[in-house]
Structure formats: structure tokens, C-alpha cells
């Protein structure tokens, strides 16, 4: 949206000038925490991505200082914040009709916690990631969350 960057195309993300199913991969790096409506943004991504295309999303974890460093950040997210777009009860289709399959979730932690093995545990055991999100993450704080999603059409 700004000509000061390296953009090839300037546009508002709600109205991208691309036809349906154009891209094999769509990357949203430090992007979704700033948009006014994450559901609409991901519906547009779903539209322009090919079936089974790859979507990579990176955002600060809500316990990282970076989540609060920018006054443009509207949303503070966890490693479970995209569950709406996967398999879910049918009544949630109203809110998030776009479907993605979660291929990979990768959480990074601060160096000291990585050195102590917490990052390994969080990324290798889903139950540990859940335990970490519920009980530990305000002390053993997160840094970034990266998702790799597959577009389901």
C-alpha cells in the first residue's frame, strides 16, 4: 500500500487486482496483526491462491514485546488464533468461510528459552504447546508464530 517499499503492485488488500486462483504461494509476513479484519483478509488470500496453494503467515506472539511495539498493531495473537480456518463446528462457517489446512506451526521463543529447550518442546509436541499457551507463556515468553497453510477449495 506504500510506494516507499519494493512493491510491484500498490493496492488495498481488500481489493487486490488479481483473478481467482492466481498464486501458488501467498506470504503474509508481519501483516495480519495490522489489518482491520483478519477474516476478510484471509478470504481474499483464499480467493487469489490456487487450490492446494501455500500460504505462509508470520506474526508476533502476543507475549512478545514486539506485539506492543507498533501502534499499528490491532491484534495480539497466539499459536491457536487461526483455528477458525481449519476444521471446526459448522456454525463457525458464517464467520470464516475460507478453508485452509494447517501444515505446520512454528513458534520461536527468546534466546534463553530456546537454549533451555522450551522452543524444541513447543514445536515438537502439540500438547506441550497447549500447556505452554495456557500456563507458561507469560513467563517463558513467545516471540513469533509462523504458520504454513494449504488452501482448501
Amino acid at each position, binding site marked *: 500500500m506504500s510506494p516507499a517499499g519494493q512493491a510491484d503492485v500498490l493496492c488495498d488488500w481488500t481489493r487486490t487486482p488479481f483473478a481467482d486462483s492466481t498464486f501458488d504461494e501467498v506470504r503474509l509476513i508481519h501483516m495480519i496483526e495490522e489489518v482491520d479484519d483478519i477474516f476478510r483478509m484471509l478470504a481474499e488470500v483464499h480467493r487469489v491462491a490456487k487450490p492446494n496453494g501455500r500460504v505462509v503467515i508470520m506474526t508476533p506472539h502476543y507475549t512478545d514485546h514486539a506485539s506492543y511495539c507498533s501502534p499499528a498493531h490491532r*491484534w495480539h495473537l497466539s499459536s491457536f488464533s487461526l483455528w477458525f480456518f481449519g476444521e471446526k463446528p459448522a*456454525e463457525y462457517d458464517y464467520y470464516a468461510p475460507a478453508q485452509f489446512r494447517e501444515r505446520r506451526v512454528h513458534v520461536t521463543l527468546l534466546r534463553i528459552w530456546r537454549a533451555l529447550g522450551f522452543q524444541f518442546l513447543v514445536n515438537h509436541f502439540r500438547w506441550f504447546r497447549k500447556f505452554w499457551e495456557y*500456563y507458561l507463556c507469560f513467563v517463558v515468553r513467545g516471540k513469533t508464530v509462523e504458520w504454513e497453510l494449504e488452501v482448501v477449495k
Partner: protein
Amino acid sequence: MPRILDVGCGPTKYPGSIGLDMNASTAADVLCHLDHGGLPFRDNSFDHLRAEHIIEHVADIIATMEEFHRVTKPGGTIFIATPHYTDFSSFRDPTHRWHLNTYSFLYFYPGGMHGRDMWYTKVRVREVKLNLRLLNLWRALGFEFLVNRSRFFRQFWEHYLSFVIRGKLMEFTFEVIK
């Protein structure tokens, strides 16, 4: 029979209530979007209003509370359930705009702003009941009992403990003052 409004009723409406939701495939009797205009009811229409897991989604909490206050009778009650800002669920939903604590509604209490009424809104409610839930482990260790039992301990918990002994759900019951 008391008149009850269930705001954001979802698929399971509160028994005996009028259900209101923005989504037509719910148990809603009335379709209405809270961020696009007010509630379609006259002043003082309800004895009891319920908003479970709603207030953290709205664009403007103060405007929404003004509507809740307007349609509820004087002396009527408003029940609000919402996650504490230290809970996992506060950050799991990418449509949660607000992360709240047990003091977030002081804004609407008489004298709630350091002894003065808040001058940005005319809404006045009294906190009749607050039930705070903590995660299983902390409940088992007695912390949930303490935060609900003692105002002093709740304040201490909010200030010093709540990032470790994390909160879960807050259930407020307010009495409407007009």
C-alpha cells in the same frame, strides 16, 4: 414473566429470552449487528440482559454498554461473561478487539474513576456479583476461592500474580442505575 434479552445468543439461546444475533443460522429471534446502529428496542424494555462472550468483540464497548443500559429497566440486571486478559482464550480468537480485567467496568460504576463518576458516559451500573474463574490447577490450589472471596486478594492478584496464576473467565452481574 421477566423479559430477558440474550445478546449474541448463538445456537443456544438462554431459556425464556429473546435471542439477538448478527448470524441468521443461530437461535436468534432478532437479527442485529451491534456495530451498525443501536438495539431495535424501546428504552426500559428488559428486566435482564445477557451478553456472553460478546463485549470483547464489539467495536465500541462504551457505545454498546450505553445501548445495554438504555434497553434495561432501572433496577434490572445485566450479565456479562468475557475472558480475563491473561487467559489463553483472550488471544485465541482473531476477532477479540479488547483484553479486559476485573476492573475494566469501573468506568461505569458510580465514583468508579478515583471517587468521581466517569465523565465520558452517562451509563451507571452497580457490580452486584463478580465470579472469576481460574485455570484448573490454580482452582485446585485454592486461588480461585481467594480471588472471589476477598476484594483485597483480588486486587493483589491483578497487580502482582495474574501473569503467573492466570485468569480464565469473568462473569459480572450489574444492576442498572438510572
